[in-house]
């Protein structure tokens, strides 16, 4: 999806490379931010912060630790959840997460101009893998992943035993790993 050499160029302060990095990642990161924050405006604000941080800290990126996309996704998720918690601590109620749809539930708006065929296949595979999970497992994973809830908090939210929630998450993650392992085993997960 993103060539690691593109980040190497951004490290050197290459504006054009940064622009390309944005073009290749903005939809995915914005989608993630909207999913977590439930708000386009706030997601756009978050992306400004994230890209600024990427521009400033890109020299810390180490290709041996993960793909550029994994790095960007992890950073965006981390910052979005920080923001979500800051908002919750100020007394705001999150109303978005469960209402937001997944790929399986919503129409695909079509490929991005920067998306390769391999990107599309991967996206479809992930969507299918997630959609293929039992609803309970998918829900438990999404509450942890997109809302930053711990298993205890999820159990409380769903009014389910803690062990059940843990098992759902473990099983769901295990299935996703089995379904998607081919992508990183092939070594072309970028």
């Amino acid at each position, binding site marked *: 999806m993103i060539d690691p050499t593109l980040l190497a160029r951004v490290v050197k302060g290459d504006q054009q490379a940064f622009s390309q990095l944005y073009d290749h990642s903005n939809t995915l990161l*914005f989608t993630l931010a909207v999913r977590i924050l439930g708000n386009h405006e706030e997601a*756009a604000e978050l992306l400004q912060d994230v890209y600024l941080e990427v*521009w400033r*800290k890109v020299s810390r990126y180490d290709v041996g630790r993960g793909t550029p996309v*994994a790095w960007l996704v992890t950073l965006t998720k981390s910052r979005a959840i920080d923001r979500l918690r800051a908002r919750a601590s100020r007394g705001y109620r999150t109303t978005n997460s469960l209402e937001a749809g997944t790929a399986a539930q919503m129409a695909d708006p079509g490929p991005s101009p920067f998306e390769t065929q391999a990107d599309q296949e991967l996206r479809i595979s992930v969507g299918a893998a997630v959609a293929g999970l039992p609803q309970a497992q998918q829900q438990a994973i999404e509450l942890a992943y997109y809302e930053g809830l711990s298993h205890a908090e999820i159990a409380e939210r769903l009014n389910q035993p803690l062990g059940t929630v843990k098992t759902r998450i473990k099983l769901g993650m*295990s299935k996703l*790993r089995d379904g998607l392992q081919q992508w990183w085993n092939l070594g072309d997960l970028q």
Partner: protein
Amino acid sequence: MTHEELEESVPLYAAGALDRIERQALEAHLLSGCASCHSALKDYQSVAALLPLGLSPTKPPRSLKATIMAGRNPASIPAEAATNEPARPSLEPGEWMNHLFPPVAPARSLSLPWALGLATLLIVSVGGYFAWNVSTQRSIDTSNIKQLEASLQEKSAKLAGVDREVGDQAKALAELRNELQQRTNEAAEAKEQLAQREAELEETRVQLSQRGSARTVETPQDELATLLRIPNVKAVTLTGSEMAKRAAGFLLYDSRTQKAWLYSVNLPECPAGTTYQLWAIHDKPMSIGTFQMDTGETAHLLVKKVLSFTNAKTFAVSLEPSGGRPQPTGPMYLLSRS
């Protein structure tokens, strides 16, 4: 916790479902070097990173890119800017695979006042950071502008100095040119004057030579005086004979000009029909010239052109009939001593 329990918590960790204590326990275990847990985590982290791809894509507003591109400080190189970040968020990019710290959840495990306190601190520190960032940037910009202004001013001053110097030098050059012109004129004038003087000198020389020759004729005394200063002029003294004991004479002969001067004193007045005659005697007497002594005259100068008497050693003056005689006939009045 046992290894099995820890290993089972790996997928929950990757999904972000562990609480703080469980998370720290697993991290400690991973740092201790458990290869199987590390490998498992790597797989689950990869799954976790892919999850957003399963969402229905939502495109950000088109203006976002321009805002982000403009929001960066183009002057700051990413590597440098990274060192100036005071407020460190919970998860550093690039570190996720190494230490695997998902976002911490302090607000969940702390009481509300603590949470509020932390939130306030966060707001203050973030605000402070941005204020610091803006003010630092502004002060850097201001100091940069000041430096540029100072540099510009300095350059302008230098330029003005150079201008002045060039002006001065041009002025000095013009002065030198004027002076040179003046000197050239003076030299030309001096040359002209010199030519004039030379002409005058030439004229004077001509006049002098003319005057000199005229004087020789008009004033033999001057010539005699000149003769006295010439070393090869022969000088002979003559003394009076019995006929004129008080008489004396002084003869000069210049072989160069073949002229003879006889200066005689106290010779008696010539009786009428007689004349004194000067003789140069070598083997035989040779007449040099005649002269008269008038009444009251005591001294007389005779100047004569003589062809040759270089060998003559004796000179004499005799009294002869008027017009002189080829050989002495009368009495001797003056005779040289040699």
